[in-house]
């Protein structure tokens, strides 16, 4: 067991949402290091230590990925597909975050191997409640092999 706290990667282009998500995580007592990238390309660079993330210490392997669906450059589903098709990365749980509640998007996320799918509700309190479910993964992630 490694006692080092698990890092979390949040892929989100909307700064407001980054702030709100961080707040919601905090309110749920999840205080781990959260690395934030702005788009799908950056997310992949982060995971593969490319470009500005070539320094592994600045881009550690995350234990959990919160992935927004609608992203510039490379969208969330594409990133999800890359992750899940990589034998090394596919064990990392991915929770999709989206503002859309369209059924087909939800189905698409699960089909792509997402471990959970969270619709961002307009009501912030509700959002906080939903993030609570992430804690389940949190426990799980803490037990996962690195």
């Amino acid at each position, binding site marked *: 067991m490694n006692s080092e706290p698990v890092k979390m990667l949040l892929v989100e282009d909307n700064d407001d949402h980054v702030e709100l998500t961080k707040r919601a995580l905090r309110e749920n007592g999840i205080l781990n290091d959260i690395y934030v990238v702005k788009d799908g390309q950056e997310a992949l660079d982060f995971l593969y230590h490319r470009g500005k993330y070539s320094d592994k210490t600045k881009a550690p392997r995350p234990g959990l990925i919160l992935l927004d669906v609608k992203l510039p450059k490379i969208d969330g589903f594409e990133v999800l597909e890359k992750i899940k098709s990589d034998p090394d990365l596919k064990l990392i749980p991915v929770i999709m975050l989206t503002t859309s509640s369209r059924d087909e998007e939800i189905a698409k996320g699960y089909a792509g191997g997402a471990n959970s799918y969270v619709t961002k509700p307009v009501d*912030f309190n509700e*959002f906080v409640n939903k993030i609570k479910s992430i804690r389940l993964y949190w426990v799980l992630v803490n037990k996962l092999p690195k």
Partner: protein
Amino acid sequence: MKEQSEDERTIERAIFADRLARFVLFPFLFGIAVIAYTKGIPYPLIPIGIVLVAYYITAQITIVLIKRNFCPKWVYLFRLIISMVLTAIAVHYTGGIESPLFILLGISFIMSALILPLKQSIFVFVVGGVAYLAEIWLEHYGIIPHIHIVNAFSANAFQDTTYLLIFSLVIVTVLAGMGTLTGYLIRFLNLQLEELREAKTHTENLVKVLEEARVTLEDKVKERTREIAESEEKYRNIVDKSFDGIYIVQDDVFKFVNTRFEEITGYTAEELKHMDFRELIAPESLELVSERGLKRQRGEKVPENYEFVELRKDGKKIDVEVFATTINYKGRLAVQAYIRDITEKKILENEIRETRDLVDSILQSSADAIVAVDRKGIVTFASKGAEEMLGYRESWIGTHTSKYYAKGMEKAKELEGIVREKEKLENYEIDYIAEDGRIISAIVSASLLRDVNGKVIGSLGVAKDITEKKKLENETREVKNFLENIIESSIDGITTTNNKGVITFASKGAEEMLGYRREETIGTHIYQYYLNGREDARKIMKVLGKDGRLQNYEIDIIAKDGRIVPINTSASLIRDNRGKTIGTMGVYKDITEKKRLEEEIRRRNEELENFVYTVSHDLKSPLVSLQGFASILLSDYKDKIDENGQHYLERIGQNASYMETLTQDLLELSKVGRVVGAFEKVDTSKIIEELTGRVQHLLEEKKIELLLRNHFPIVYCDRNRILQVFENLISNSIKFMGDAESPVIEIGHTDKGEVYEFYVRDNGIGIEKKYHEKIFIIFQRLQDLEGVEGTGVGLAIIKRIVENHGGNIWVGSEKGKGATFHFTLPKRNLGQPYTLPKRQNID
């Protein structure tokens, strides 16, 4: 004796008479001449000489003529007359010695009588008498000089030696004449005698010949007897071995039987000898045979040849044929008969009869008309089929075939010609005329009929009535024309191919659609018109081969001008009567325009999709932020913001939430048009049940009574969408119940034939009539519905759902009197209300 002909006798007589005359006349005249000369009496020697010469010449001519057989009788008569005349002349010149002349005349008469028939004798006598009387009369009247030689002598002439001499001469002459006559008589008698002698000799010869013949005959008889004796055995064998039984019956008893007869009867010859012939006759034939036997014995005429039944010794009856005659047997009448066992023949006859009956019944039972005619075209047989086909009531036999042809004798001649030339007629179509005048079409086959020797005796024809068939053919043709017209007037293209994919037909529609003239396409392979050639053909045939049909298949065709024409085709296999596939038929439409519209729709849908995406993400994102930050502001800075500020923050949050609902509804509405679930049989009572459960707490809370009017039907629909309709209507009713004293919501339906009409009724606040249309339009909220949540999209959504199901929705209401929402759903499955055209998947 030689028979003399009448003419020969006449000749003979003529010669005889002539000689007689010469013998009498010549010596007489000669004597007179001598006496006159010696006495110196002038005597007309020259006339006498002329008479004699004339006499001689005529005699010779007569003889020659008679010998030449030139009318001997008449020549002779003429000769006699000449003789008389000449004699008369001679007598005149000798001086009228009437007496001797008279004698001469008498002799002539006698001779004439002897040799001539009476009439001719009389004639001669008359002529002679006339000649004599003429001489006397001529002298008397001095026409001729009277010469009386006797007068030249003295009166006592008788004393005169000269006279005596003359007289003697006369006597001698007479005697000589008599002598000659006698001589001739004798000669005549001798002739008779000669004949007798000849006859005698002849008889004697005959006797001699007969004797010789008798001897020879005797020898021959002996020889023959020996031969007969030799061959008797042979003949007996023949008789015994004869195929026929032979017997002789006399006095009712068998006098003779041959071996064959023993075999036929089963009795031995010895047994038969003691038997009455009737014992061999079977009882049924006894009367006939006895009667004939009796008659025959009485010599009456009875048939010689007849059949009867014979009784054998072993009691078996056999059919026999008998040929019986009467013969003289040992001096008395007997019956000789030949008998033949005809059992076999009878069997054969029966077989022939049965065969004939069979053939007859076959011919008669045939539904076809069978008619036999002789060489002249006269009917000798007509089957029942023939009679029924044409309906003639009187017999056909003996009538001429021309009677039955619509074209009469002309047709009969034509057919006869063909049959004579080709010896048969095959499947020839002929129109007959029935008794009632109808024309009956028939297919005829005929062949020559021959007897056992191969000689043509007529012909046999079989005719099949094809009137019905022809009628059917006509009808079929009409139907065909009808169908062809339909096909030709169809705007759709219709093309048929054979089993190999070669085009056999292309409709006018096809020509116009693709620009090929049908003459160009018929006979070519269909694949060459497909954009993907054989590959397309293979795909189509795969489906056709499996299902027998292909529906709404879309394929690209190359038109004549090179355009690529997308078509929608439905094809099926063409089968013959026995179900065997003989080709394919495709009906197709030019869907270029449809394709274009589809593309347009697809593009619009894409735009809509983008719009929806934008709405659900980009419009919602700021709301999330807005609400989030407002919420955080309220919780984190609660003590720093006064009550008014807090109220505003809450309003911001509420508006953000409303905005979210609004986008949510918009998305829902867009989905209704684009996304449709599968249609299935749905029990609407189950839907009502489910909804009742969901709204139960709301009903209880507002004390609303829910009335379900009847059992709900099963409809074919998208379950979730119809549930949404009911849910929306029920929740609207709850929402707009207002302050009714005893709030009631009633749900029911009525059967309207083709559709079910559902209704949801409440006694709530109601809707003003002017809004009845408006409420179904998006975002049209009624202003005075304060305190009621709603975006104004709900009714628009359910209107679209109902319409997509082929139904209608409307409201019946008045302000303050509640509202009733009606909507209809068709009973029949109308199929998917709207789907993007999908290509039939055939790979």
